[in-house]
């Protein structure tokens, strides 16, 4: 049993709601804090926060990726290394396989989540700027999967083989379109081209952002429209809807 106490600020980041909302929920008995008598500040049991059923995974991932200092996400959404991710991906594959309507495409959904998640590890191993590993969460009722990393981002890693790239928009476009042959100076699996190809031919939607560039791909959408986002962050954020 985890009886560790965390601050209201930490709790707020871990479940993606404001401190004001947490205070309101506390007063209403929806999610109770533990008050320390001397200071009067609200603290939360870490296990209560870890067990809280987060409704908006995308919002939570955005808070995590955009945080200035960086913090470890909730344990059930955090894959600190690729072996943890591999195990959780297999679990997701198993759960997706039980959904009858996804019978024909669940290996493809697992494959694209696998490529996006593994890309994060492959291109940041030994170079994580702060928090190593990825955020990986899914909601099978809402049919979405959210992946995020606080790594170097596509522009930085792709510059190793395409030094002329100058902005996130161009880097994102290249990552999703240009087949890179050969192995040096960096191994690239062409995984994002694979992801695009699968999304374009199946009933799957993808949102992907790195830096201040994002794109959305859906079935039969062959044009790749990379847009400039209002929010800029290091790393990558992806949402797969099916």
């Amino acid at each position, binding site marked *: 049993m985890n009886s560790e106490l965390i601050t209201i600020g930490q709790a707020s980041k871990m479940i993606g709601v404001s401190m004001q909302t947490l205070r309101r929920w506390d007063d209403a008995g929806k999610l109770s804090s533990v008050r320390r008598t001397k200071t009067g500040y609200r603290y939360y049991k870490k296990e209560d926060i870890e067990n809280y059923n987060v409704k908006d995974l995308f919002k939570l991932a955005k808070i995590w990726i955009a945080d200035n200092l960086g913090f470890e996400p909730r344990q059930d959404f955090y894959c600190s290394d690729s072996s943890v991710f591999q195990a959780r*991906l297999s679990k997701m594959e198993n759960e997706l396989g039980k959904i009858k309507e996804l019978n024909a495409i669940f290996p493809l959904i697992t494959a694209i989540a696998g490529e996006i998640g*593994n890309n994060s590890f492959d291109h940041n191993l030994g170079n994580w700027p702060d928090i190593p590993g990825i955020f990986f969460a899914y909601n099978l009722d809402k049919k979405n999967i959210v992946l995020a990393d606080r790594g170097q981002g596509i522009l930085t890693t792709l510059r190793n083989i395409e030094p002329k790239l100058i902005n996130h928009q161009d880097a994102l476009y290249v990552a999703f379109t240009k087949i890179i042959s050969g192995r040096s100076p960096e191994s690239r699996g062409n995984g994002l081209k694979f992801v695009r190809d699968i999304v374009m031919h199946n009933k799957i939607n993808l949102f992907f952002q790195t830096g201040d560039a994002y794109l959305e791909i859906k079935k039969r959408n062959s044009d790749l429209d990379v847009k400039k986002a209002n929010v800029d962050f290091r790393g990558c954020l992806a949402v797969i809807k099916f």
Partner: protein
Amino acid sequence: MTIFLKKFGTTLTGRQFGKESFSAFLPSLKRVKNDEMVEIDFEGVITFTPSWGDEFLSPLLNRFKNKLVLKNTENPSVQATLKMLEKVHNTKFKLSEKK
């Protein structure tokens, strides 16, 4: 020789895992005789991706070239991955004929 991929797992994703799988299998490749065909059997594989495939299949393709034959490739993620690897390496995998 037939290599049964399900013996490495049914969710074959990631370069790291692909590299580990290839390294683990490398000693067994010494048993392949000159002119012997090497068959890769995908039966039982549920999820297959280009990152794992590039680390495992690409070195086999480089070494055995047209003696490398693939079998039971019907799974959609296997099909999509083979298509991508063919583009990357500008080649065409040989599929074993159905009996």
